[in-house]
């Protein structure tokens, strides 16, 4: 817990310096009219629990993005370091009719992030899908198994270094050494 509070304090300090808005301890930005919160693996669970306590009663969507081959610039507000993976969580507050999206940076070396199963059990399948497609592990998930691909499948299809274009095609004829 002390780690999390330290990380939260650090985020606050960074935010003050950069003069950006904070919500639930995460930096806020706007994207095409949507409210986007930026979190790191350390602050993720805390941001989500605070959002939950603030009345965001339903987890509407959870997915991941692999930014390995992203051509554009990836400047994140509040001095956050862009990582290869990003877990994108959409929450909804039915009373205020409000939506927020939490973008969490997940490093390629250790693609692990806490599961939201305890807050919203509906995250079960969505997290399984993100695990299946991106190989991101959600710790404390009750059943971290593949959901769409066969159980014995090797690799994670939606990673940018998987399959399409991953295996170089040899257009020259193979040398005949027989």
């Amino acid at each position, binding site marked *: 817990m002390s780690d999390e509070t330290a990380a939260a304090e650090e985020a606050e300090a960074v935010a003050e310096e950069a003069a950006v808005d904070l919500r639930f301890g995460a930096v806020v930005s706007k*994207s*095409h*009219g*949507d409210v986007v919160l930026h979190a790191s693996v350390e602050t993720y669970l805390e941001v989500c629990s605070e959002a939950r306590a603030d*009345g965001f*009663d*339903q*987890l*509407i*969507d959870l*997915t991941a*993005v*692999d930014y390995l081959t*992203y*051509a*554009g*610039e990836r400047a994140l507000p509040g001095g956050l370091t862009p990582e290869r993976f990003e877990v*994108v969580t*959409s929450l909804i507050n*039915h*009373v205020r*009719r409000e*939506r927020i*999206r939490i973008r969490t940076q997940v490093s390629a070396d250790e693609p692990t992030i806490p599961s939201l*199963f*305890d*807050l*919203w*059990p*509906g*995250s*079960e*399948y*969505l997290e399984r*899908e993100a695990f299946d*497609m991106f190989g991101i592990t959600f710790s404390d998930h*009750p*059943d971290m*198994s*593949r*959901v*769409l*691909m*066969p*159980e014995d499948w090797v690799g994670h*299809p*939606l990673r940018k270094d998987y*399959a*399409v274009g991953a295996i170089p095609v040899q257009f020259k004829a193979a040398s005949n050494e027989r």
Partner: protein
Amino acid sequence: MTITDETPETVDGAARVRQRGDDAAVLRLSEAQAAAIGTDATTPDDDERVLLNMGPSHPSTHGVLRLMLEMEGETVIRSKPVVGYLHTGMEKQAEQLTFLQGCTNVTRMDYASPFFTELAFSLATEKLLDIEVPERAVWIRMLMSELNRISSHLLFMATNGMDLGAVSMMIYGWREREEVLRFFEKVTGLRMNHNYIRPGGVAADLPDGWKGEIEALLELLPPRLEEYDVLMTGQPIWRERLQGVGTLNTDEALALSATGPILRSTGYAWDLRRDQPYLAYDEVDFDVIVGTYGDCYDRYAIRLNEIRESMRIVEQILDKMPLGDYRVQDKKVTPPPRIRIDQSMEALIHHFKIFTEGFKVPEGEAYACVESPRGELGIYMVSDGSSTPYRMHVRGPSFINVQTMPHLMRESLIADAVAIISSVDPIMGEVDR
């Protein structure tokens, strides 16, 4: 029930749902573990629980849904939906296709309501492009969506009837749906997989005489719906079969991320068309239908009455349909009119460029959602400034609603499991993508 200012208490629901997961509803068992139980000669004893496989090829599993059921006699104790049999990597495929081709891809996901995925895809792209489509395009989109909701719910009526033994209902449902699809064919050229709603507007204007066609449709449907009422709604066998079966309450539905008729059947009035209006839904008048008990009967009744509400909306669209262009005149995203291609070299090049290279979409990420017949259908799109999406994720309502099944089926008879699968109305093309 209307939403009050109080924060709905879902902590209990979440706790209950979680707790149930361990021993009372959700079966978490891998294929290998399940297979081991099957070959183990010492199990099962007479009074022990038996693991039963249902599907993927079963007449009442709506395509290729497979269920692992843990049975005690005839009672389902725990269950696990096994999905993925139709997985074709459509999200990966979307990364190879341009934004213009994208609609042909996503329209194949929820094949019973293709306009909604096209619409969500187009709305997300337009959000990134920051363009506004003309009035007429907005209203055409709304018209097609509502007609599609009717055809999709009619399909539900048919399959639900079939699953529960009202076999003539199956024929009736398909018959009425065909009338709606005939109109789609006239407008888009295809009965399904239309690729009609595209970023920037729609593919073509409505054909001559479309109003007459719809008026005829609106005249044809109400007496048929009354027939359904006679055949099913008030019928004792039908009620007996559905009432009190597969119940869920509001906080459980919220905790399980359920949307659409499943959430509304618990008495929670949440409909994106009313609560977060898109297109021009704030300019039409309609009611959000809710249930009371959250059972299979409520889900059936909601869908039947949503057909009536959609017809109300379609009637208003008939009166309010504005004149004007059916697609945005932004040369970046819209090809030149067909006639110009014969007259001008530049127009030909322009046309060629848009259909080969596609148009570039500015960097950024956006989420757009619509109320599909099955719940919230959202598309999360990331663009890196090229002409194909960098990432496209679909929040398929069917996929997420499937996780309510074990909770609906707990402690119910296996015969009721069939009714429950049917009332969740999953479209496997969208579940597996």
